[in-house]
């Protein structure tokens, strides 16, 4: 059953997209979507949207998540070298998985954005290795279930992710690119050096500085 499109919801969504493109997006800190337009202020909290899908199959929440994350997953995959049609397919499947697995989402472990990034990662692996009968996405699921309860953990996974995000904005452009290739694309340091045509030692020192910076932001969580 598809509910009739609500024009107001569309307006909110579009306003949200503007705010997002201009200000960046924080999943755990509500962004006042549309605040710039003056009239409508709706907190865009991706964690809450996933929980709304889990609790009440909220299609409007899904639409907002889709409109925000699907184009970003697609962009991420294309930057990683995926052809546009495959990136489109994986981005759509990633959001379909968000709908199906919403009940398994746990903001104490990770923010919605990080959760969706890992879903997209698993789908990319499945597509790349489908013919080889890969079990890797199962392995990731098992590790996710295993991740130990941490009663001494000061803040939730969502809060940690928000801090990582804040720390990422403090990286220089060069550091950010190296982090993206090494940590998201998973290239070896040597491959990063080759791709950026810079010496291996430069890759290592940029990563070291970037990691020290990121870890400083997370230190008190340990």
């Amino acid at each position, binding site marked *: 059953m*598809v509910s009739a499109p609500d024009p107001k919801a569309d307006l909110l969504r579009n306003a949200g997209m503007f705010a997002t493109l201009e200000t*960046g997006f924080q999943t755990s800190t509500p962004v006042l979507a549309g605040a710039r337009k003056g009239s409508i202020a709706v907190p865009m909290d991706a964690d809450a949207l996933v929980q709304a899908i889990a609790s009440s199959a909220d299609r409007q929440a899904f639409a907002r998540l*889709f*409109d925000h*994350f*699907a*184009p*970003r997953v*697609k*962009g*991420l995959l*294309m930057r990683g070298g995926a052809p*546009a049609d495959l990136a489109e397919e994986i*981005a*759509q499947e990633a*959001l*379909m998985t968000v*709908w*199906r*697995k919403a009940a*398994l989402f746990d903001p104490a*472990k*990770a*923010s919605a*954005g*990080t959760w*969706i*990034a*890992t879903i*997209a*990662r698993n789908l*990319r692996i499945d597509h790349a*290795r489908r013919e*080889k*009968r*890969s*079990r*890797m996405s*199962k392995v990731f*699921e*098992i*590790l996710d*279930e*295993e991740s130990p309860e941490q009663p001494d953990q000061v803040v939730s*996974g969502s809060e*940690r*992710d928000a801090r*990582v*995000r804040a720390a*990422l*904005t403090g990286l220089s452009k060069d550091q950010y690119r190296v*982090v*993206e290739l*090494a*940590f998201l*694309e*998973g290239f*070896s340091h040597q491959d990063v050096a080759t791709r950026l045509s810079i010496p291996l030692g430069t890759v290592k020192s940029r990563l070291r500085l970037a990691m020290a910076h*990121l870890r400083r932001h997370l230190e008190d969580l*340990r």
Partner: protein
Amino acid sequence: MNARHLASDETHLASDETLAGFASGRLDEGMALVVAAHIELNPASGRSLRDIEAIGGGVLAQGEAVAMLSSAEDALARIEASGDAVASASEGSGEAGLPRVLAPYELGKWRPIGRGVAMRRVHVPGAEARVFMLRAAPGMWLPEHQHTGYEWTTILAGAYEHQYGRFARGDFDEANEDHEHHPHVDPVEGCTCIVALTGEVRFKGWLGRLLQPLVRL
């Protein structure tokens, strides 16, 4: 000293480079499985993995969007057409006493390969690395060997020791080319580990000659 051991020599954890390769899904599945066993058994690496995944989430949030051709309604229609495939619980918990990440894989039988040592193959379809478990009796010396590729090991039980330190349950031993070692198994507990190998391995000694054809698999 081997450069790969510098970063994690003290703690015997997987390096950030290895964890990032794992987190991105770019590692060979055989190598990845040994890393997964380490992450399951070692909470510190579990936390590092989640940090790396958080960086992935952050990069996703800040990255450039590319317009979708399909809409949320299209995705919902596809979900409805496919029936409500509810999130599946993961399959059986696997063999007692083994890391759960091994559950999706077929394991061979333990085969003795000489006195005090047994091996068991782990079938990882499509992997380039050969993966196996090795069980050695207390006090054994594992054969001295050298490799042209990688040899990654996660200790599942007991311990061994070589020139880079003592490796016990949950520790990760990341060795690459030109790295020659000769592990001594804990004299009380023995040692069981899971190993992924790429490239050629050259064993020395009588046990090595027994192991040589087996690791080629």
